[in-house]
C-alpha cells in the first residue's frame, strides 16, 4: 500500500515523462520577475525615506531629481543593488558548479577552503597593512584588503588543486578532505592575526568577516564585476560536462567530455567568482549551498537549467537578506553574513539530516 502510493506521488510530480525542462523554464521566468520585484523594493528601502513612487512622480512631471535624492539613488543604492545581484549570482552559481564537480550536494566554496583562504588574505592585509611603508600603503590604498582576499582565495584553490591532483587526475575525496584541512589551517592563521590585532583592526576584521554590501561603490563594482561576469558566462559552457560528471569521471570521459580540462575550467570559474565576491563583500555564507539545493528540489539537477536559475535565485535572495540587514536595527545595519547565517545555518542542518547517507562515504 505504502509503496504504491509513493509511486503514484512520484509519477504525478513529473507529469509521467520525467522531463523537467518546461518546469525549469517556468521557474526561470518566475525568478526573473521575482528578481525585478525585489530589486525595485531594495532601491526604495533605506534610511533616507526615498520611495520609488516619489521618483516616478518627479520624472513624470518632467522635473529633475534634487541632488540628495540623486546621490542616494545613483551613488549609494544602485551600486549596492548591482553588487548584491552580482555577488548573489556568483555565490550561488559557484556553489552549484562546485557541487557538480564534487558530485556532492554539501560541497561549497565555503567548505573547501576557498572562502577561508580569502578571509585569511583579508585579515592579514588588515593587521599587517599597518606595518607596510607609508608610500606603498598610499599606493595600494583602500584596495589592499580586497586585493589580498582575492589572492588568498585564489591561492587556496590552487593549493587545493595541486594537493588533490596526481597524474592529471583530481580525486574528489582527497579534495574535499584537503579543503577541510585548508579551511582549518586558514582559520588558525587568521586566529593568530586576530590575536595580535589592535582594537580598531579587530572591528575591521569582525565586520569584514561577517560580510556586508554596505561598502559598495561604483569603483569597487568595477573591480569585481569583470571577474564575476567572466565566471558567470563561463558557467553555462560547463553545464553539459557537469551533467555527465554526475555519472562519475570515467563515464563522463566515455561520453566524450574532456574531463581534466573541464575540471580546470570549473575550478578557475569558482576561484574567480568567489575570490571577487569575498573581496568586495566579505564572507557571506550559505547562499552557495542553500540556493542550488532548493532548485534541485524544484527543477531537478540538470545543470543546463540549474545554473541560470541559481544565478537569479542567488541574486534575489542576497538582495532580500541585504534589505533585512538594513531594516532590522535601522538606522544602523547588521552585517549581511549574520542574516544569511541565521537563515542558512538551520537550513544547512536540514539538508544534512535529509542526506545523512551521503556522509557515510
Amino acid at each position, binding site marked *: 500500500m505504502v509503496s504504491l502510493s509513493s509511486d503514484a506521488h512520484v509519477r504525478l510530480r513529473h507529469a509521467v515523462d520525467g522531463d523537467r525542462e518546461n518546469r525549469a523554464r517556468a521557474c526561470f521566468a518566475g525568478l526573473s520577475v521575482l528578481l525585478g520585484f525585489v530589486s525595485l523594493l531594495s532601491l526604495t528601502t533605506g534610511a533616507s525615506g526615498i520611495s520609488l513612487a516619489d521618483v516616478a512622480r518627479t520624472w513624470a512631471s518632467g522635473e529633475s531629481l534634487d541632488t540628495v535624492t540623486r546621490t542616494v539613488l545613483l551613488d549609494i543604492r544602485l551600486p549596492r543593488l548591482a553588487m548584491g545581484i552580482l555577488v548573489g549570482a556568483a555565490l550561488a552559481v559557484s556553489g552549484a558548479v562546485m557541487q557538480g564537480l564534487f558530485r556532492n550536494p554539501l560541497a561549497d566554496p565555503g567548505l573547501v577552503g576557498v572562502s577561508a583562504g580569502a578571509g585569511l588574505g583579508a585579515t592579514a592585509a588588515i593587521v599587517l597593512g599597518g606595518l607596510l611603508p607609508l608610500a606603498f600603503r598610499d599606493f595600494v590604498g583602500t584596495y589592499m584588503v580586497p586585493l589580498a582576499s582575492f589572492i588568498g582565495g585564489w591561492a587556496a584553490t590552487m593549493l587545493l588543486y595541486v594537493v588533490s591532483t596526481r597524474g592529471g587526475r583530481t580525486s574528489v575525496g582527497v579534495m574535499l578532505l584537503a579543503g577541510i584541512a585548508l579551511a582549518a589551517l586558514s582559520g588558525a592563521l587568521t586566529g593568530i592575526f586576530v590575536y595580535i590585532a589592535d582594537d580598531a583592526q579587530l572591528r575591521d576584521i569582525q565586520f569584514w568577516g561577517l560580510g556586508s554590501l554596505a561598502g559598495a561603490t561604483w569603483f569597487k563594482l568595477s573591480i569585481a564585476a569583470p571577474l564575476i561576469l567572466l565566471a558567470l558566462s563561463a558557467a553555462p559552457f560547463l553545464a553539459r560536462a557537469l551533467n555527465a560528471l554526475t555519472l*562519475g569521471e570515467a563515464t563522463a570521459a566515455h561520453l566524450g567530455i574532456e574531463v581534466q580540462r573541464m575540471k580546470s575550467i570549473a575550478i578557475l570559474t569558482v576561484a574567480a567568482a568567489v575570490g571577487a565576491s569575498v573581496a568586495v563583500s566579505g564572507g557571506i555564507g550559505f547562499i552557495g549551498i542553500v540556493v542550488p539545493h532548493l532548485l534541485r528540489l524544484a527543477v531537478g539537477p540538470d545543470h543546463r537549467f540549474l545554473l541560470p536559475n541559481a544565478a537569479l535565485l542567488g541574486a534575489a535572495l542576497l538582495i532580500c537578506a541585504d534589505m533585512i540587514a538594513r531594516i532590522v536595527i535601522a538606522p544602523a545595519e547588521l552585517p549581511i553574513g549574520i542574516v544569511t547565517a541565521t537563515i542558512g545555518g538551520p537550513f544547512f542542518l536540514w539538508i544534512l539530516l535529509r542526506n545523512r547517507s551521503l556522509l557515510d562515504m
Partner: protein
Amino acid sequence: MFSAENIVVRLDRRDILRGVDMQAQAGHVTAIVGHNGSGKTTLLRALTQDIGYSGRVLLDGRDVTEMKGWELASRRAVLPQASRVAFPFTVLEVVRLGLLTGAAGADDSLPSKALARVGLAGFEGRFYQELSGGEQQRVQLARVLCQVWEPVTGGAPRWLLLDEPVSSLDIGHQLQVMEIATAHARAGGGVIAVMHDLNLTAMFADHVVLLADGRCIASGPPSLVFTDETLSTAYGCSLRVNTTPGDRATFLLPHTAHRVA
C-alpha cells in the same frame, strides 16, 4: 576491429595484466571471461582509456590514444560494472545523457525507445535512485544504447563495451540483454562483454577471450575454448563441459565440478 596488443597494466607495483593480446571483430559478440580478479575489468578499462597501460589499443587500425574524446564517444559506448548517479535525476534524464555527444540529428524519442528495448517502458518519470539494482543496470544499458543506437554509421561499426551487463539481472532479463547485444552485432556493430556466466557466454558469444592471472590463456569460439582442461586450469577447479544432444550446444553444470585442493 577492436584490438589490443601486448597490454601491460601495473597498479600498486603489481602486474595486473601481463601482456594481453586480444581481437574483437565487428559483427561478433566477444566475451572476456576468467576467474575473479583475473583482470577482466582492468582489460576493459585499458580498452576504454580509463587507466594507463603499455601496449597498444587499436580501433579499426587507429591507435585510440590519437583519437579525440568526442570521436571515441561517437564510436563506442561503455557500460561500467556499477554506476552511481550523484543527484536525483529521473530515469529519462539519465538515459538522455547518452545523447550528450550529440550524434547529429538524434531524435527526442530515442531515450524512450531505448527504455522500451530494455523492458523499462513507462519508467521515464521515476527517480533513478529509487530503482532496484537490476533496474538501474538496465537504465544504464539504455543510456549506453542511446549513445550508439545505429550499429553502423558512415560505414564504420560502433561498439558496445559492457562490463558484466547481466550480473545483477534475473534470468528473463539476462536473456533479453544478451539478445540486445547479439542483435547489435548481427546488424554490423561490435560487442565486447565481460561475462561471469559461462553458460550464457557459450550460448551468445561468437568469440571468447579467457583470462587467468592477468594473461590470456585461450581465445577462439566457445566450443574450442571451453574444454575440460582449459577451463579447469583457468578456474582452479576440476570442470566438466557437456554438450546438449541435439544441436551440440556447450553447457556446464556446477554439479560436475570438484574443487582441487
